[in-house]
């Protein structure tokens, strides 16, 4: 009889955790997206369910041009970032480039910088009243324009090549040198070795980097908004459809969102089908050797790397310098002082406070949920876990502006009105930035020996207590290095904030965007400097804590 009682299923802690996570995800991910889909098949112009919006999209150049432009920008950027990122990764991993560790850190910092800072800085340098533009004009030349397609691709390239670099150098470091030696031994010269062995083996990693670039380009709102000037890409179109003062059309905006998500999902499908199948896990016995270069050769190889990394990091320097320059309305320099900071403190103090409060609250949730979800994904495998896995990674492929619209259309009516509250900002941060922490945490947990938990339980500590006193604590390094990425992307968040903010809940990123549009460079720079400095300090802390072994990708 006792046996019977014992074998009856009792809901435990993990059951309730899974239940809570699934319910929360249904409410804040599935339901908003479901609302978008249903909205997309309605229209104010036609009765009932209709494909009117989609028909309009594919018949009006104004709409389908945006899709074409997005594709042009995405594919062009994938190409340029590959051409920049792969050679840099090869050179840095295989040759004695001076200061390679510092270069590596600077490349990560460029990637982690607020995404629209690049666009903003390049406007300061090459925009209509840009410093370099004026310089060129003085010597009688026309500076290349930063506006339009070329500018967007240029800024994206400098901002996103680190993805390709990081994935490629990761693969280059784990490729066993015996593969290249085998090729050499079988009679291939150096160039043919790279072409027939090295490149094909690291190709899946390069493609993984390319997919990150593609997704980010497709979703990014700030850069094309600031630089586009008529070159309207999809996320900008979504914003215009939804936010513009004249004729907002939430139905059309929803249809556009569906189209963007479709593009991301197609890319993700490509990754699942083509890239993941070719994942060559390697048991690296003999790590690749570094070739020593000397004198002029070493200089010539290092120089282009320093130039690219310098260009990529330049925006952050420009922004910091600009923040100390006070200008008159006509753009004349009035002095070098802290007036910009005084202005933002008095006028935009609330934005600054909001940014930090929202991000801190979000990050606390992210860490707690991240620990629990990582544990479920790795140790409680099953149907529920894989459902959670899919759902939690979903925001990864949804552009922020689309998620923003989803949350608005879902929560602007009873029973749950959240639009305009701080809660909706925090919720959007949590669901968008949680994947970083979960990925890092679960990857860390995979490497952890399950016997440690079993030893604790075997010694008489209950599974629950073991989880909190042993497992959770041991997971902390993995969780924290992911959480830092979540944190940095939270404070720099623009694309969903710009959809969701209200007067009371505006953030620094939103304010920067508005100040730039208003041509108020000084205050924008001061705000951007706050973000940049916070980002750099956070990165330095995580570099210190992990001894430089932070995994960004």
């Amino acid at each position, binding site marked *: 009889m006792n046996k019977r009682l014992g074998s009856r299923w009792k809901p435990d802690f993990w059951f309730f955790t899974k239940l809570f996570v699934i319910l929360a995800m249904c409410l804040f991910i599935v339901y908003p997206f479901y609302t978008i889909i249903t909205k997309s098949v309605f229209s104010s112009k036609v009765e009932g369910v209709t494909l009117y919006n989609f028909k309009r999209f594919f018949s009006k150049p104004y709409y389908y041009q945006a899709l074409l432009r997005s594709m042009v920008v995405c594919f062009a950027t994938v190409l340029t970032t590959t051409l920049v990122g792969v050679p840099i990764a090869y050179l840095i991993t295989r040759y004695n480039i001076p200061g390679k560790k510092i270069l590596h850190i600077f490349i990560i910092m460029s990637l982690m910088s607020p995404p629209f800072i690049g666009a903003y800085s390049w406007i300061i340098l090459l925009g209509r009243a840009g410093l370099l533009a004026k310089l060129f004009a003085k010597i009688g030349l026309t500076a290349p324009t930063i506006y339009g397609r070329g500018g967007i691709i240029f800024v994206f390239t400098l901002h996103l090549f680190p993805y390709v670099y990081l994935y490629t150098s990761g693969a280059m470091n784990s490729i066993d040198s*015996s*593969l290249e030696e*085998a*090729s*050499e*031994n079988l009679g291939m010269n150096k160039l043919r070795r790279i072409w027939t062995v090295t490149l*094909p083996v690291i190709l899946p990693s390069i493609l993984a980097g390319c997919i990150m670039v593609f997704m980010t380009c497709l979703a990014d709102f700030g850069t094309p908004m600031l630089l586009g000037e008529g070159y309207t890409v999809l996320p900008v179109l979504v914003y215009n459809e939804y936010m513009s003062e004249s004729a907002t059309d939430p139905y059309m905006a929803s249809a556009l969102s569906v189209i963007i998500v479709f593009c991301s999902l197609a890319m993700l499908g490509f990754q699942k089908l083509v890239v993941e199948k*070719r994942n060559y896990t390697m048991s690296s016995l003999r790590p690749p050797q570094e070739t020593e270069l000397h004198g002029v050769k070493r200089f010539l190889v290092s120089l282009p790397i320093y130039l690219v990394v310098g260009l990529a990091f330049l925006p952050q320097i420009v922004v910091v310098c600009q923040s100390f320059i006070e200008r008159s309305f006509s753009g004349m320099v009035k002095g070098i002082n802290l007036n910009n900071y005084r202005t933002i403190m008095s006028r935009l103090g609330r934005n600054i406070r909001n940014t930090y409060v929202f991000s801190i609250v979000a990050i606390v949730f992210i860490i707690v949920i991240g620990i629990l979800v990582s544990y479920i994904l790795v140790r409680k495998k099953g149907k529920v876990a894989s459902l959670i896995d899919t759902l939690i990674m979903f925001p990864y492929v949804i552009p922020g502006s689309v998620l923003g619209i989803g949350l608005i259309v879902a929560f602007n009516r009873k029973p749950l009105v959240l639009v305009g509250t701080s809660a909706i900002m925090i919720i959007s941060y949590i669901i968008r930035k949680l994947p970083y922490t979960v990925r890092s945490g679960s990857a860390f947990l995979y490497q952890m020996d399950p016997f440690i938990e079993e030893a604790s339980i075997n010694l008489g500590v209950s599974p629950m207590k073991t989880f909190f006193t042993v497992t959770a604590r041991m997971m902390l390094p993995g969780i924290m290095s992911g959480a830092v990425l979540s944190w940095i992307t939270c404070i720099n968040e623009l694309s969903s904030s710009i959809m969701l903010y209200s007067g009371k809940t505006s953030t620094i990123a939103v304010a920067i965007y508005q100040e730039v549009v208003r041509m108020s460079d000084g205050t924008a720079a001061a705000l951007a400097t706050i973000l940049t400095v916070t980002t750099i300090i956070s990165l330095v802390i995580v570099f210190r804590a992990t001894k430089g072994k932070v995994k960004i990708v």
Partner: protein
Amino acid sequence: MSNRVIIKDAVKRYGDFTALNGVSLDIQEGEFFTLLGPSGCGKTTLLRMIAGFNSIEGGDFYFGDKRINDVPAHKRDIGMVFQNYAIFPHLTVRENVAYGLKARKMPAKEIKPKVDEALELVQISHLADRKPNELSGGQQQRVALARAFVIEPSVLLMDEPLSNLDAKLRVQMRSVIKKLQRRLGITTIYVTHDQEEALAISDRIAVMKEGHIMQIGTPREIYAKPQNPFVAGFIGVSNFLDCEVKAPAAGDAAVSIKGELDITVPVRRAYTGKGKISARPEQLFFSESGMPGTVLFSTFLGDFIEHEVQLNDGQNLIVNEYTKDTTEVHSDGEKVHLSFDPTRISLYDESEEVLSL
């Protein structure tokens, strides 16, 4: 075209550390030659120098009459089997095996029959279109072998090729490799730290230690007549006994072991002073007289029984008795006497140079 390999005074340094200190070898055409030694002895270093992956700091390397010191690795025409096989993960089995032929710009229609033949030889024709991640360790090993010999290299190098396989497969692949080498007649240089593997597979073995060659010989010579205590201890199991040697001239030496056993050992030169005897466990036997001791305990291992015997001075010896030779049972604590055949043991002088014939 198979080749004789001659190495004269090979030297390799890493900073202040000398990994190889004047190693010389003369490997015959078609010979299966093994470099054997503990990790860090320089065996892999030497192999990688032959392959061209390590620079050569001193000495001369010849394939036949051709000095190869300055020939780049991809032009040395050497087949090599790597420790982790280094199968190209993005290529099929067939493409892997064809890789070296393509590097030699062989026309495609000549490549196919050669690859088929090679796959046939290592018995993996049915796997030709598989990707490496679909193969077991033993199958990958066969791919690595086929890929190395299909280019008909002048020399075949193998760097601990069996160390990643489980024990049973290791024995199986050992004979596959040996038979293949016999059949193709390729001069083969094989690196291993496993003495049993070396004895089983080699025509000749060079035992190495700390960048030096300790002994070169056939498996039989190395086992039966180790030239120094290191080889005696590294190959198989040996008991070492301190002794006093009196040999006024080459011929018979009077050897006294711990004052308890006096024997006559044939020696190659005059020597008087302290010495060391090495005796295999199966060379020791129980007798009426000899070194007195006590059986500590015995382990029954089927075809033989291993006894641990403590001598009066506290030293422990291992004595093996074959079950087919004896019906006697020695129980723990029994007082016994140990003897051996003086012509079969090895005797060394104080500087560990061999004295016995």
